[in-house]
């Protein structure tokens, strides 16, 4: 099973944002979709970076945890002034859709990654692979 290609288990066509999108839009995506990572791509679908929920949390007012209206307003305004390209993690490791599960697991385990963009042979984004995709593959038969 380790020789199966990532194109068979990755999540294709993941949600992406552009570098000049603002972080309030990114927050809306995180608030409405059950995902932890959003990939930043240019107009040619070339990967520029990745934004995790932790990247977003780093931008929030430090009193946000108290759920006060004042900090919520501050965050609303503040996030509109920050571009995705400023908040993203750059120089992201990537895998190819022709790489095998064996290669992917080795890299995930070594680096404790939770998500990686998947490229085609033209180096364009075609999917995202997460630990959940790998676990879903390994534990196909539900035991609940």
């Amino acid at each position, binding site marked *: 099973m*380790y020789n199966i290609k990532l194109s068979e288990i990755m999540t294709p066509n993941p949600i992406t944002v552009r570098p000049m999108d603002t972080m309030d839009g990114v927050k809306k995506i995180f608030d409405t979709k059950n995902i932890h990572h959003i990939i930043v791509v240019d107009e040619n679908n070339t990967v520029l970076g990745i934004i995790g*929920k932790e990247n977003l949390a*780093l931008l929030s007012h430090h009193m946000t945890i108290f759920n006060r209206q004042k900090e919520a307003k501050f965050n609303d305004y503040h996030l509109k002034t920050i571009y995705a390209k400023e908040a993203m993690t750059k120089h*992201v490791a990537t895998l190819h859709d022709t790489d095998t599960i064996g290669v992917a697991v*080795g890299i995930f385990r*070594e680096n404790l990654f939770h998500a990686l963009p998947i490229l085609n042979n033209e180096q364009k984004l075609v999917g995202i692979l997460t*630990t*959940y995709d790998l676990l879903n593959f390994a534990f196909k038969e539900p*035991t609940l």
Partner: protein
Amino acid sequence: MNPYQAISTIMTKKPVCVLEDDSCQKVQAIFSEKSIHHIPVLNLNDEIVGIISREDMAKLIQSKGAELDSLEVQTIMTAHPGTLSPEDTIGFAADIFLVNKYHALPIIDDDNRLVGIVTSHDLLKYAFNKIPITETDND
């Protein structure tokens, strides 16, 4: 791979934990020192009352040292986290992780006392144990 094997066989025993009235500065020091992403939070009876993650701490990144020192863990932890029992199976744990998109779950005994923690990477390691880890030049 045996999905009916007990989760206790792959969990991390005696994980690093903090008390609910410990300061967030202590949590920050632990995250700085150790390569972990989640810390279970206990009360004085050693019962699990919450869990705190790096993401939770990231929300405090702009806080100064004195503020972190005066802020108790219970203020920002996720209270009443999902938990598993040591006897639960690995397959059951995988289902729980996949349905809820958890990254880590505390393992507790019948008295609600912490006995271990299991992460999505523990499950990955178990499911693909024959694959050697691979270093990458990228970050």
